[in-house]
């Protein structure tokens, strides 16, 4: 490497005469910088490719007929009808319902693990909860298909219908495959995301603030309310947004239990479909306007998940900087899953 550069070096003929700084140092560092920067640029490129590809494949559907595409309820590829509403509805409703259900449990786990659990239990229990995230989506889906859905059909949904049947969402035939099954599976899958980020946020609350409350005779729950939650508020909100992003993008398990019907029904038992599942089910067989419509749904899904992720990260940064002049406890490098 160094010898190659000395060929066109004007000072090269006199090199043996005058001792000079070795050129090798510079070349090595230039290569080092170029190679690593190239890898970094590839990361940007990979993201850009996703955006550009979906944008190109969407054929400007959004620009051409944005409102009518987004607002239309009919999806019938055979007759050329492409409305995004059923999928937007399915994605948003299942994700929000799943997150709403998962948040209290996830916060409960996070609080238990940071505040109440005996020390010997914290490591193993935390690991166990994080294992929930390690089980592949398709395995949850498999379990959903063979265990959860049949149970919902024969036991869960009839029970809900007889207990809460006066509510429209618990009316209708107990199908099993449908929104409720999807919500339960998504909730289970976002639980570890929300709880592990919340746990990190809670344990970053400065010890000085905790001790300040305890020194005034606060019980643990009073300390949580007075200083821990106010300090961790935006970080916890970030955890929820991150979980919502995960929920929206969840594909395999959902497609296996949701019934995959492009309908908007009042009943939680009814089959539905989401942006992610319709892409998984139809993308490789689609062409023309159908493909454009699917790519547009992909673009919408991308925009939603990216927005949620960025917002979550901004909130996480705010937790670290605002709230108190005190340094956060355990300032360790955050390894978000």
């Amino acid at each position, binding site marked *: 490497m160094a010898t190659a550069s000395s060929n066109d070096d004007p000072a090269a003929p006199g090199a043996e005469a005058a001792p000079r700084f070795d050129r090798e140092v510079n070349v090595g560092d230039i290569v080092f910088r170029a190679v690593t920067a190239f890898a970094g640029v590839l990361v940007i490129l990979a993201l850009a490719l996703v955006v550009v590809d979906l944008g190109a494949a969407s054929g400007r559907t959004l620009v051409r007929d944005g409102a009518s595409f987004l607002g239309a309820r009919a999806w019938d590829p055979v007759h050329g009808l492409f409305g995004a509403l059923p999928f937007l509805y399915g994605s948003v409703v299942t994700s929000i319902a799943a997150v709403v259900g998962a948040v209290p449990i996830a916060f409960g786990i996070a609080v238990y693990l940071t505040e109440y659990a005996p020390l010997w239990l914290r490591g193993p229990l935390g690991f166990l909860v994080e294992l929930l995230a390690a089980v592949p989506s398709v395995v949850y889906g498999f379990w959903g298909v063979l265990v959860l859905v049949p149970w919902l059909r024969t036991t869960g949904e009839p029970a809900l219908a007889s207990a809460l049947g006066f509510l429209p969402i618990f009316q209708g035939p107990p199908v099993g495959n449908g929104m409720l099954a999807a919500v339960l599976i998504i909730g289970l899958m976002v639980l570890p995301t929300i709880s592990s980020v919340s746990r990190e946020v809670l344990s970053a609350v400065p010890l*000085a*603030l905790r001790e300040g409350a305890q*020194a*005034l005779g*606060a019980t643990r729950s009073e300390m949580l309310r*007075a200083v821990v939650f*106010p*300090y961790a508020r935006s970080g916890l909100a970030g955890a929820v947004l991150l979980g919502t992003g995960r929920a929206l993008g969840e594909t395999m398990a959902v497609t296996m239990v949701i019934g995959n019907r492009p309908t908007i029904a009042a009943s939680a038992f009814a089959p539905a479909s989401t942006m992610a599942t319709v892409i998984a089910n139809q993308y490789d067989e689609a062409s023309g306007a159908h493909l454009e419509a699917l790519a547009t749904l992909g673009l919408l899904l991308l925009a939603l998940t990216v927005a949620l992720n960025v917002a979550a990260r901004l909130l996480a940064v705010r937790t670290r900087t605002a709230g*108190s002049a005190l340094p956060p406890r355990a300032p360790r490098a955050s390894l978000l899953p």
Partner: protein
Amino acid sequence: MKHPPIDAPADAKMRAVGLSVQYGEKVAVNEVSLSLLSNEVLAFIGPSGCGKSTFLRTLNRMNDSIEGVKVKGSVELDGEDIYAADVDPVLVRRRVGMVFQKSNPFPKSIFENVAYGLRIAGVRDRGILAEKVERALTQAALWDEVKDRLDESGLGLSGGQQQRLCIARALAVEPEVLLMDEPASALDPIATAKIEELISELRKTLSIAIVTHSMQQAARISQRTGFFYMGKLVELDDTTTIFTKPNERATEDYITGRFG
């Protein structure tokens, strides 16, 4: 190095007997016995890592929530062992307040910071709260500076004001003992002077144990001083005695600046 005798006059407010603290394998406080009298300021001095802060924190059980800490021996408050099995640390801390090295106001308004201890103790009446908050802030010599902005965040105050806010917060619940862990170490000389003045004033109504890294400060504000070294209480005596004719060689070496 002989142990100082346990001094236990009848009017001792708090008394530690044979108190040891262990962090895992490390003995941080070793068999310390001493008493804190009513209406006195008792200072603890010693090189850093000598156990004086750890000892102070045992007096309101602040070490309880730290991983792997074991406390042996007993601490009595008005003759009652605060480490007895049926005693809740929450109730101990209600009577034995604490001010920390770094000011730690809650992310709340000035008023709510001071009112917090009262609120959790069950005071709901707005009038009583306002009255007690004003009294505590006045006691902490902060009232005049903040009376027009009680609704602003406590985090907007200067360092010295924040520390006085934390003192006011501790005083609001009318504790019988106040523990102070190097309360002025992060402050400028003017703010330090204010805090010291305040401590001398507070002595009229309660007992104070203070850890300080400044011997001058100990000499200025305390009636008695204890010298800690390597987890042991080497010597405890009237402050003037400690600083003029200490009994122990180690104490003398420390005050004359030969180590530490």
